[in-house]
């Protein structure tokens, strides 16, 4: 729905880091912005000049994840998977993790990492990517 041109000002920027898309979420996220982001990422994966090697969503700046945002994150990962791309959610805060678990959302399909560095090495990119100890396939 956002069309081809640049996304509106209120939206979340999606940076290309080599063949990896890096999304940094921060502070308050309106529902509409989150939904927009979901479309935008699918669009970027589908139209990227080179095949996208992975999507990293940094949520270290996010103070709460409710079931709505949880669903959006899960759907971004599911959509990416359909487009043959892996998604890693990085930097979830302890309080957010405890709350999500209590809420009943363990998001089993989601691959997670402590921070963006770890996420990149999990995707086989970035420094110290020698041996990804946990390819997500072995779960």
């Amino acid at each position, binding site marked *: 729905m956002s069309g081809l041109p640049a996304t509106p000002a209120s939206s979340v920027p999606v940076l290309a880091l080599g063949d990896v898309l890096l999304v940094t979420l921060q502070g308050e996220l309106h529902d509409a912005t989150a939904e927009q982001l979901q479309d935008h990422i699918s669009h970027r994966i589908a139209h990227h000049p080179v095949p996208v090697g992975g999507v990293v969503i940094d949520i270290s700046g996010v103070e709460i994840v409710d079931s709505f945002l949880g669903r959006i994150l899960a759907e971004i990962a599911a959509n990416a998977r359909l487009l043959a791309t892996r998604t890693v959610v*990085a930097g979830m805060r*302890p309080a957010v*993790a*405890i709350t999500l*678990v209590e809420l009943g959302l363990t998001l089993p399909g989601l691959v997670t*990492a*402590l921070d963006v560095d770890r996420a990149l090495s999990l995707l086989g990119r970035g420094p110290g990517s020698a041996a990804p*100890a946990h390819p997500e396939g072995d779960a």
Partner: protein
Amino acid sequence: MQVAEHDTADGVAKELGGFLERRREQIAQRWADAPLFRTVFTVSRDEAVEACKAVVDALADVARSGRLEDVQAPGFAAVRDQLGRMAASRTQAGFSSSQIAGEVAGLREPTLTLLRAEFEDSSSEHLEACLLALTVLMGTLRLVVMETSVSAGEELIARQQLQLLEVATPVIKLWEGIVAVPLIGTLDSARSQVVMESLLEAIVDQRARYAILDITGVPTVDSLVAQHLMKTVAAARLMGAECIVSGIRPAIAQTIVHLGIDLGTIITRAGLADALAYALTEQGIVVSQGPAQGGSPR
């Protein structure tokens, strides 16, 4: 003369109120040196004097309302918070509530002296009545303070219990990227909560990829605690770390199975050492015996 009015209890109470109002400054000056005020209001003597005045005002208010024996008299409401803080501060300094009550009782004497001086010329019966009224009022103040000091003590105990919980669950770094909590003793819901929070915090602080929950020292696990363990594992996973539960004793394993809780998705190891070995291997770290030990490679 005004004798008729003076000798009704209400009249005496009103007169006492008037006395407290007139002698506010002198009473406050004398009280300010008492340990109860001096050790609590330490910024300046003026601060202590002001605090004393607030209490004198409250007493005058109570006296005027004629409710000398009423702990719930509205006059006390204005200073209840202040008295609570004073009691709490004395409690923290190690005083028991009866010692604090004793300190409050100590405020009576200087006030009685002033009252005697003021009513020097009255009839002795009248003086007696006023002294008695003041004694009753000071007794009531003592009760009010005792009440607040008891609740201040409870608050202190609650806070200490919380601190004890945190002390009793240390999270230790075993290796680069590996943290562990050795749990000892009974796990209840409150402690499980503290364990979960401190372990997850440690994961962030130490950038730990592996977190070991060692329950070798835990005698029993009920369903609530088992659920807490599961939640901790799930939360760690959401943060990008892997949790390993070690030291599940046979009796506990049986309980867990009996409770119908599925540990299938959780990595478990027999002991802390096995859990550490697992975490090291997963990170590609090989620990070998030094050459001095000789020995044959296995």
